[in-house]
């Protein structure tokens, strides 16, 4: 047994880890009478990738490319390949993943199972929109090949299906042509939420990437709006990444009431001075934290929660305002707070998170009951607005909010693999 935690470090739980390393052996390895769940890099925050006292099928050893066509941008690889390895292989040939989340240190399988999104949702949707085919291994020994045009329902259940339909072993992905690895970026400070929505709406037509950092302790809702477009200009050689590791777990969270206000104020004002147009390489733009290894340790031994919700646009402005008000008055929250609008499109997966509206993501150091009480207040706002919470981030949402937030649940359940179970599935579905 091995003690494993997820990215939120809310605890360490014993697991039987079974490494998958040969895609032709997976069928035999899954044949077991005990329940398991696929586990990649463990970068989801809550309990979606955990199965305490049960089996984890570790997929990071399934990290081989199978084929890549430089002319068409079609890439076939094993499910444990990291997005980083795809980007580094294909960007020199002018191809890039069309959708990428805020870290590239995740596996392809995890990106599909959580149907991750990026800063360009209004243009390119979520990760699952670009997957052409997957191979899904079931614990009964069957293999299902599915895609948007092949056994579609299996595909729609598996994209965003949090690993519960089987173990994804291979994926065929359509990459996207780029002129170069740099982006033409612009940072604009804003001082209230109305301005944020103005910027988000007016940027949609002309900018591919839009996102904003929001100062969660300013009640007005000030922040920094960032937008970017790919460019064929390469102003500098590609940056060399300097990796720093957070070397230890501090005895208390370094993100706390004392540190948060000065940090956020300093960050906002510094960035305000640097605002305007510039060129940014895609790695620091998409993955600002990837060079700070194990940054999740800064929250101390108790770990942290991430709360990410999406609410429909009609209710969006007032719901975000209400959530910020609750967070400000609690004094909690974190430096890492992101506000972003999603485009007007439906996701591929039955259980995918993105939906038209506005999404707010915030880290909270784990203060036990205090934090959970705040979340209940936020839940009420999300529920009222008809929103949902992101499964990849969640460790605690109540079942009723899950059921109203994910109306296609009963349809999805028909595709579950009875040999698969996770801490999340037991918490939210019951088995």
């Amino acid at each position, binding site marked *: 047994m*091995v*003690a*494993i*935690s997820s990215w939120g470090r809310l605890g*360490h739980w014993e697991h*039987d*880890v*079974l*490494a*998958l*390393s*040969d*895609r*032709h052996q997976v069928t035999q390895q899954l044949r077991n009478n005990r329940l398991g769940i696929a586990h990649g890099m463990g970068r989801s925050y809550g309990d979606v990738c955990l199965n305490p006292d049960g089996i984890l099928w*570790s997929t990071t*050893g399934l990290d*081989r*490319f*199978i*084929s*890549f066509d430089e002319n068409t941008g079609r890439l076939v690889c094993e499910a444990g390949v990291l997005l980083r390895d795809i980007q580094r*292989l294909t960007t020199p040939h002018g191809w890039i993943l069309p959708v990428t989340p805020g870290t590239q240190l995740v596996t392809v399988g995890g990106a599909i199972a959580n149907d991750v999104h990026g800063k360009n949702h209004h243009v390119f949707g979520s990760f699952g929109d670009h997957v052409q085919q997957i191979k899904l291994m079931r614990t009964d020994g069957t293999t299902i090949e599915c895609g948007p045009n092949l056994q579609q329902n299996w595909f729609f259940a598996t994209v965003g299906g949090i690993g519960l339909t089987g173990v994804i072993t291979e994926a065929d992905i359509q990459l996207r042509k780029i002129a170069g690895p740099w982006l033409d970026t612009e940072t604009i400070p804003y001082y209230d939420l109305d301005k944020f929505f103005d910027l988000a709406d007016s940027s949609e037509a002309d900018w591919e990437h839009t996102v904003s950092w929001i100062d969660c302790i300013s009640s007005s809702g000030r922040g920094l709006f960032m937008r970017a477009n790919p460019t064929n200009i390469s102003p500098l050689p590609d940056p060399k990444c300097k990796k720093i590791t957070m070397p230890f777990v501090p005895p208390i969270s370094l993100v706390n009431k004392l540190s948060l206000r000065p940090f956020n104020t300093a960050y906002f004002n510094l960035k305000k001075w640097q605002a305007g147009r510039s060129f940014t390489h895609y790695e620091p733009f998409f993955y600002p934290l990837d060079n700070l290894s194990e940054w999740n340790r800064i929250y101390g031994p108790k770990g942290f929660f991430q709360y990410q919700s999406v609410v429909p646009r009609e209710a969006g402005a007032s719901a975000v305002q209400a959530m910020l008000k609750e967070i400000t008055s609690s004094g909690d929250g974190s430096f890492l707070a992101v506000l972003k609008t999603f485009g007007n499109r439906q996701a591929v997966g039955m259980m995918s998170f993105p939906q038209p509206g506005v999404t707010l993501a915030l880290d909270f150091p784990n203060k036990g009951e205090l934090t959970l009480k705040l979340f209940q207040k936020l839940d009420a706002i999300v529920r009222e607005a008809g929103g949902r919470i992101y499964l990849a981030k969640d460790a605690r949402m109540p079942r009723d909010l899950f059921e109203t937030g994910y109306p296609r649940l009963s349809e999805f359940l028909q595709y579950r693999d009875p040999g698969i179970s996770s801490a999340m599935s037991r918490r939210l579905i019951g088995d």
Partner: protein
Amino acid sequence: MSDKKRIVIVGATSAIAEHCARLWVKDAEVDLTLIGRDLGRIERVAADLHVRSPNSVIRVLEANFIDPLAIHQLVDGIVAEGAVNTVLIAHGSLPDQALCQQDLTAAHEALTVNGISPVLFAESFAGHMQKANYGTLAIIGSVAGDRGRKSNYVYGAAKGLVTRYTQGLQHRLANTLVKIVLVKPGPTDTPMTAHIKEEGGRFAKVEDVAEQIVKGISQGKTVVYAPGKWALIMMIIRHLPTFIFNKMDI
């Protein structure tokens, strides 16, 4: 024969070897021969390397790792196709110590796969390299071979055999241009160790270990600890007096 640098990897499906191969094909277009016990698995590794480096030459060979005669013929065949610049002998498997204590067949297999087999491959290549007065031969040992301990001494004994063998070979070839490199990885995060891996710093990332191995081989170092901190740790462990060492639960 192409003018590409010729590299042979024995045990090419091991995670450390596979990552070394990825680094080699990333650095330059090479002529790579991958040897393994299961042709399907080697072919999957080869396909991956081909995607990473379409212009490298990648050959695959399935081989018997136990039979001395088969090893001899295999190596003769490879060398007959042209001089080899680098050989990496990387195969091994982590046995269950408790099982080895109860079941001599398991102990025998662990000693053969981790100790005798790599040595036979090395001996076979070394003769050719000495004749050609050219090349670098690297063998993967382990920090476990530095001092026997109760939790894995069968594996440790096999790796200790590799250590002693390599010392002798280095002595024999000291006056030639052939370089012999003994690699001693510390605990590394690979499929072989997934079931015992603890979170945190004790297990090194396989990419990092591979990077240090490739670097050590290109420099022709005699011993490469990967990560480097294990040189210091093992120096202390080797020198601990028995009365202290035997009280430790390691």
